[in-house]
């Protein structure tokens, strides 16, 4: 269930350089990089794009887009990924069969690479990609954007795709920004030294 409805949340806040003109512009931007489902025969191992925040299979209608002053949507990332340990038995088996069928003692490096790719394709056909859904809420009152994640990789991925889709640059907002607003850090001194250093 979407974190917009239930559960504890951790989020990262961004300030965009400008807000979208209207909801249609938001729809257009989301459609630009709408999520595209991965096909097992696809050469890509991952797909990243926008989906509806409540119906995370929907990347066309975005029926939950508007909530009061918020635009809500989500970043969906599907990724096929297999560890070396997962691949090992199937690659060893495929190589064993290949050597026996072709009466070979060794397999050339290029052939090994092809066998590995065949095995991965077969495994992709028999499994689902790992899916990550990260909700986004864009407050049109404050203009702030809330990304429901604090993972560095997700923040980087979100920033890239957001700036590309909306053609709006964004900056992370931090409580420490107040230091600059209130006159800067230059005149500040840590107080701990004054508390514990003067004993």
């Amino acid at each position, binding site marked *: 269930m979407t974190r917009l409805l239930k559960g504890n949340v951790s989020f990262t806040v961004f300030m965009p350089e400008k807000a979208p003109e209207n909801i249609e512009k938001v729809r257009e931007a989301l459609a630009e990089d709408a999520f595209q489902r991965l096909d097992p025969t696809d050469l890509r191992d991952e797909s990243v794009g926008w989906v509806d925040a409540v119906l995370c299979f929907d990347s066309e209608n975005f029926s939950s887009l508007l909530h009061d002053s918020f635009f809500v949507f989500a970043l969906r990332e599907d990724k096929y990924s297999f560890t070396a340990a997962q691949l090992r038995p199937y690659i060893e088996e495929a190589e064993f069969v290949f050597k026996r069928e072709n009466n070979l003692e060794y397999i050339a490096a290029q052939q090994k690479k092809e066998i590995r790719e065949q095995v991965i394709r077969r495994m992709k056909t028999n499994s689902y990609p790992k899916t990550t859904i990260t909700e986004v809420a864009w407050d049109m009152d404050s203009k702030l954007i809330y990304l429901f994640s604090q993972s560095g990789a997700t923040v980087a991925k979100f920033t890239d795709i957001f700036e590309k889709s909306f053609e709006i640059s964004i900056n992370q907002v931090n*409580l420490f920004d107040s*230091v600059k607003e209130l006159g800067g850090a230059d005149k500040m001194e840590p*107080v701990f030294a004054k508390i514990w250093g003067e004993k």
Partner: protein
Amino acid sequence: MTKESGIGYLGSEFLLWLFWKSATDEKMSLNNLGLGEISVLIEDSITLASVTGDGYCETIKSQDITSLPSVRESMKSGRVPQALKIKISSGELDWIFQIKAQPFKISSVKLPITGEKNEAEMISARLISMTKLELIMKALFNTFLLEREMPDFVDDIKDFLGISD
């Protein structure tokens, strides 16, 4: 360069200030920022680390942490909060979350339950309460920044911790 470069110490100072306020002020006024009165309560977890570089780091889980003599003694000897679980209340709304000094961030926010039955209303209520928490935290941090520049700030904290000159 991160935003915390050179001022990372403010995270621990802010957590110590929150601890102090939760132990001494039943209510805090954020009226000048239009946010009314709030209360800050340290919930059941605090992580203390040494400012003296002796490598001490301990997480204490207990009810009524601000009243625990062992926590006060630990802080008196130079161990400051690195992480807190806190509850902020404003009117009938309560937020419970973790706050860490470095990197300075809040996480695992339990948003107020406001009783909406309709899904769309629930989403709106949760988003509005999240933005309110963001405003409250900014107001609290600004209040801390202003108070730490007051002439009596260091002496007041020393008095609270029982550190004599």
